[in-house]
């Protein structure tokens, strides 16, 4: 199904402009100074920095704050705003790195489940196509390779774009991606052997820049020891700020709260974090995860062990955002190394 097309640099902006013309396009931009995913109006607004965007795409499908429904306190009438649209229109999320595209696929496993589909996430997800960009230059904090992802991973993407020196290779990954490319009405040359060889070389170079941060080979066995003594050491530096969970593209924990003003109210979902003590505090006062040791263990275990039992996959894509943003330099890679090297 996959098809490789070639676009020269001079035509690439035209390709983007055609996408913008036909769809609502969202991508990493510095429009609001954040390098988060925002609405893209012109091709040059897309800002692909080295490595991943500052903020992940997460806010797009799973907003940090989202109104689930509004209500009237007097009449108790509920207005759930989300409506399923069948107009065939879809949005484009462009500029994800392969690690973020993989994270979309992982979040799908949580939110798009047949019996308990999260309508808010699923609705946005079903009307969005994903165009990722392969990584030519991983950052020092990238460790995708250690968790089974790669600079050219296609998982989660409908289309993946390789940036060569004077041209781009646009590779359609899914049927939806194929339709998306055809929908532009633009003519593309098929990639030649030379194009492919250059692409392969770039990817080989990219991969050579990644160093193995840790090995997951023995991780399952190590993490099976829930009461291991190292948890007490590992958590010492943590100040429980939760920033790792906010930046993480696969962390999906949330809280639901009510907000009222006069007779009008809204039920709101907000990102929450397992790093906070109130997260699990019972009304009785009992807390199953009372100290940072239990909370740190929960975060690591959820990502690297529980998810293996739940989905057969790890909930970490190696984007390195938690490493970059931790205010006390608590490096996830070092944590995993400490675990795997423990006796």
């Amino acid at each position, binding site marked *: 199904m996959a098809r490789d097309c070639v676009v020269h640099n001079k035509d690439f902006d035209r390709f983007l402009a055609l996408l913008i013309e036909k769809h609502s396009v969202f991508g990493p931009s510095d429009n609001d100074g954040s390098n988060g995913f925002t609405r893209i109006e012109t091709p040059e607004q897309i800002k692909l920095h080295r490595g991943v965007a500052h903020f992940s795409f997460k806010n797009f499908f799973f907003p940090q704050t989202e109104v*689930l*429904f509004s*209500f009237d*306190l007097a009449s*108790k009438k*509920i207005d*759930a705003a*989300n409506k*399923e649209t069948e107009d065939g229109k879809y949005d484009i999320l462009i500029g994800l790195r392969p690690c973020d595209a993989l994270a979309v696929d992982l979040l799908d496993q*949580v*939110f798009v*489940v047949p019996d*308990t*589909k*999260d*309508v*808010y996430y*699923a*609705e946005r997800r079903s009307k969005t196509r994903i165009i990722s960009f392969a990584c030519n230059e991983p950052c020092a904090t990238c460790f995708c390779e250690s968790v089974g992802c790669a600079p050219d991973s296609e998982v989660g993407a409908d289309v993946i774009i390789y940036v060569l020196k004077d041209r781009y290779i646009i590779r359609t990954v899914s049927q939806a991606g194929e339709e998306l490319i055809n929908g532009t009405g633009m003519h593309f040359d098929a990639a030649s052997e030379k194009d492919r060889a250059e692409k392969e070389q770039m990817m080989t170079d990219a991969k050579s820049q990644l160093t193995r941060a840790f090995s997951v080979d023995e991780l399952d066995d190590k993490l099976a020891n*829930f009461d291991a003594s190292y948890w007490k050491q590992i958590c010492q530096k943590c100040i429980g700020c939760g920033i790792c969970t906010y930046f993480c593209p696969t962390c*999906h*924990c*949330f*809280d*639901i*709260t*009510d907000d*009222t003003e006069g007779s009008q*109210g809204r*039920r709101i*979902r907000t990102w*929450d974090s*397992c790093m906070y003590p109130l*997260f*699990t*505090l*019972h*009304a*009785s006062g009992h807390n*199953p*995860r009372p100290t940072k040791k*239990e909370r740190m263990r*929960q975060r690591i*275990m*959820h990502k690297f*062990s*529980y*998810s293996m*039992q*739940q989905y057969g996959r790890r909930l970490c894509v190696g984007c390195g955002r938690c490493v970059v943003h931790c205010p006390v330099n608590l490096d996830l890679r070092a944590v995993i190394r400490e675990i795997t090297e423990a006796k």
Partner: protein
Amino acid sequence: MSNPYVPMPAKIESIVIENEARDIKTFNLSLMNDTDKERFSFLPGQFAELSLLGIGECPIGIASSPTEGGCLLFTVKRAGFVTTQLHRAEVGDTIGIRGPFGNTYPLDLMEGKNVLIVGGGFAFTTLRATAKYILEGNNRNRFKDLTIVYGARNPGELIYKHELWEWEKAKDLKIYITVDKGDKGWKRREGFVPTVLKEIAPNSDSAVALVCGPPVMIKFTLPVLLEFGFAPETIFLSLEMRMKCGIGKCGRCNIGHKYVCKDGPVFSYAQLNELPQEY
């Protein structure tokens, strides 16, 4: 596509104050929409999120059996923000329900077997639902002997009192009611639930035990059951956790890789032995 976050409106038909301390109330709710009534099919052991607009939600076990007709009973202890507001609600008020959520007591496994129910305090709610389910005319033959051991701190803290006294007289079950410490008028047993359980020496042959109560009761009840030959696979416990979504997404009610809201709340003791002791 149905939205699992939107509560169904329900009317409070009646409220019973269950205990002397007046902090446990049973709310009898009826769903207001016919489509919701049809959709809300449940079995003993499941729970629902009770929802107060402008206040929030709390997960509460369903205390009634589906065999009891249209009524939905929820016995709620006043403990936190939502339950405190719920205790201020009056008959005729409209509240919301989301659910039913979670798994059930192992009714299939219990079929054709003796059932031992061990409960303590206000955690007797879904156990009451199970007893009602078993005792219902058409169901009674599907199960063998039903034995209930139920205790509370003192006589005033026993819930569902009228039903307990009726069950004492009934022929199709055996019930042992006990309190940690009686008062002047108390003519029945005194003693902790595990002690009483030991006295009655339950027969574990072809039997299933369902246990729900405060942690300290469970801690001392499990060794007694094991001592009398109950295999960990035949002992079932219902757990509680702080929850929000009820559908395994918000991430806070997990014990290891199991979510209490969707993989539980009922777990066998054998299953719990496989999970981290973090609950």
